[in-house]
């Protein structure tokens, strides 16, 4: 983390138990001010617990939360510089859009004239001008979430927490809202922390992504890093469409690790991993990097090639997935763009070869 940017959120050895159930195990990380940060992970992995601990809706069982360098671990939500956007149904159903947004300002006794200005400004920011007098039940799901966003942003706190804000929207609307959220975050310039289980959503909005699973921080990095060069096997299996293969280390050098897959020997970039001969190791290749050719065709010196048999092709609209089975029974997927040489050259059961550029495979230590 660079020293130049101010740290908005710092979490130190934060843990949360519910009786014997551990929801979060000693998580530490920090978020720079003004970043769009996503907490991504499977359901029940502890990401919402983490967000609620940052927001003050839960008390930590262990560890501390620092916001702008101040320990806020035991402050209630309203005394933290955070505001939360909830999953759904969180508008006051008996208040108009305007009163919903204004309510927080009324509580801190902002003069009525100022309230009106700030509410109008915020409603136009989220694209809801003229909706002042509507009731929540007259709004669509997307519009309700926009009102929630306005209600939180109008408080002018510097960290916005979003708990699966788009989960109940349909796919198309979710995509639109993702870009909208990103645009709003860039405009207001405050820190956004966005919890989601949807990788596409996280990749769209976030500057940085933290993968949270089983109550632990698995991996953290920029969206591009996490997608293209995941360190952990879990990340590779969770994000993108990856082929994960396992083998035994047969030889190591400074730059390469040779793995014995039982049916083939391959070379993987070492990435600084300290492995010794005989250890088990896994590596992954993104499905769009995998190429299928006929047996014996030459792919080039910088390619790793293993034998396989062709299974079938699956048309997915934008892409076509070609399934192959490796000699040990694992299935691998090669994805190509539709209409871009996707015509099938192979018959099911045909002996083929699959290959990938040597330097694009990523070794996973854990």
């Amino acid at each position: 983390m660079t020293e130049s940017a101010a740290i908005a959120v710092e979490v130190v050895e934060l843990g949360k138990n519910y009786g014997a159930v551990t929801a979060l195990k000693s998580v530490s990380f920090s978020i720079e001010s003004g970043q769009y940060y996503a907490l991504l992970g499977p359901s029940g992995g502890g990401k919402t617990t983490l967000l609620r601990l940052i927001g003050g809706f839960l008390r930590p069982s262990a560890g501390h939360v620092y916001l702008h360098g101040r320990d806020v671990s035991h402050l209630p939500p309203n005394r933290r510089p955070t505001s939360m956007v909830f999953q759904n149904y969180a508008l006051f159903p008996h208040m108009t859009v305007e009163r919903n947004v204004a309510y927080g300002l009324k509580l801190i006794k902002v003069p009525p004239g100022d309230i009106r200005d700030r509410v109008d400004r915020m409603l136009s920011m989220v694209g809801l001008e003229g909706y002042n007098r509507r009731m929540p039940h007259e709004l669509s799901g997307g519009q309700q979430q926009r009102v929630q966003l306005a209600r939180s942003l109008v408080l002018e706190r510097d960290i916005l927490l979003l708990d699966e804000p788009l989960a109940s929207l349909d796919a198309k609307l979710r995509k639109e809202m993702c870009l909208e959220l990103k645009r709003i975050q860039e405009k207001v310039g405050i820190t956004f922390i966005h919890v989601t289980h949807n990788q596409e959503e996280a990749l769209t909005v976030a500057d940085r992504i933290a993968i949270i699973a089983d109550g632990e921080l698995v991996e953290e990095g920029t969206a591009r890093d996490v997608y293209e060069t995941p360190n952990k096997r879990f990340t590779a299996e969770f994000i993108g469409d990856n082929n994960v293969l396992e083998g035994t280390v047969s030889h190591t050098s400074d730059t390469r690790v040779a793995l014995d897959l039982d049916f083939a020997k391959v070379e993987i970039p070492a990435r600084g991993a300290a492995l010794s001969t005989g250890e088990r190791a896994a590596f992954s290749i993104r499905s769009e990097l995998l190429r299928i050719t006929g047996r014996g065709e030459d792919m080039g010196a910088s390619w790793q090639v293993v034998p396989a048999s062709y299974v079938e092709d699956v048309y997915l609209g934008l892409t076509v997935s070609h399934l192959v089975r490796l000699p040990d029974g694992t299935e691998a997927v090669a994805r190509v763009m539709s209409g871009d040489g996707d015509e099938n050259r192979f018959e099911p059961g045909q002996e083929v070869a699959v290959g990938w550029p040597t330097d694009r495979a990523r070794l996973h230590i854990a």
Partner: protein
Amino acid sequence: MSPSPARRGRELPAPPARWRQLFGENGIQRWVFYIPVVFFVLFFAAPMTLTVVWSVFERTQFWMEPGFTLFAYDNFFTSARAENYLYSMLHAAASVLISFVIGFPIAVFIRRRVTRAAQHRVILLFILPFMISELVRVFAMRPVLGRNGVVNSVLMDLGILSEPITSILYSPLGVIIGDVMSFLPFMIFAGFLALEAVQNYVFEVCDDLGTGRVRLFTDIVLPLAAPGIFAGSVFIFVNSMGVALVPTLLGGPGAVNAGLIANQAIVALDFPLAMAISTIMIFTLVLLLYIGHRLFDLTKILEPIS
């Protein structure tokens, strides 16, 4: 419903034609939708109409005969009955108010402080008294509230009283206590059901915004539960006005309700008077509902929140 060949193995023999006629779309299935209409006419519209019509009939020695006279209404408004009726409304209003003050906080407590899984069990506890006949429950108040009752003896043993209070029983106070005891659960149920429809997120938003306890109650809980509170209030008010049992057992001179006044008229074989009292009660309640509707918009009771 033609049997599909794919399900041949599970095919049932076709029912005989006569059955289909009886239970099919032209038989019971069709008429079943009219049951509510029949129920409404038989048990609501017809008795109400007869009540109004009979209230203007001529009184005979044991029954009444067709005619038109306002004698019963004249009798009602020029006797102590009108005054008692007004007091009865006042006592019913007091019962509603006390039930709200005691019952609504219980509803809020159950919704907010009892874990989700236990909430319905706690609500069930308040249904238990209904397993015992109301007659028994109300009658059992006598040894509690009476001159030598539990309340008086405890207060005297503690030295708080030197003389027993005799005005608890056979007085308006006794009737109000009896009504609250009998009908309090309705406020708890209605309040709880209204609050149950409010999503937890709404309370968390209040934590986030820093809504204090008082404003949480006045700005959020009360408006969201208002339709439920009104429904519970109407129920308690109607019963406090109409159930003759409570003032019969716990009331006394000047501590009657509309139901008991009508009952007494029936005992005196003055049926037109009893019908007139009932008619006045119907119109009183319709008027109150109309006022409530203008204030709260009663259609919201059935409208899902959010």
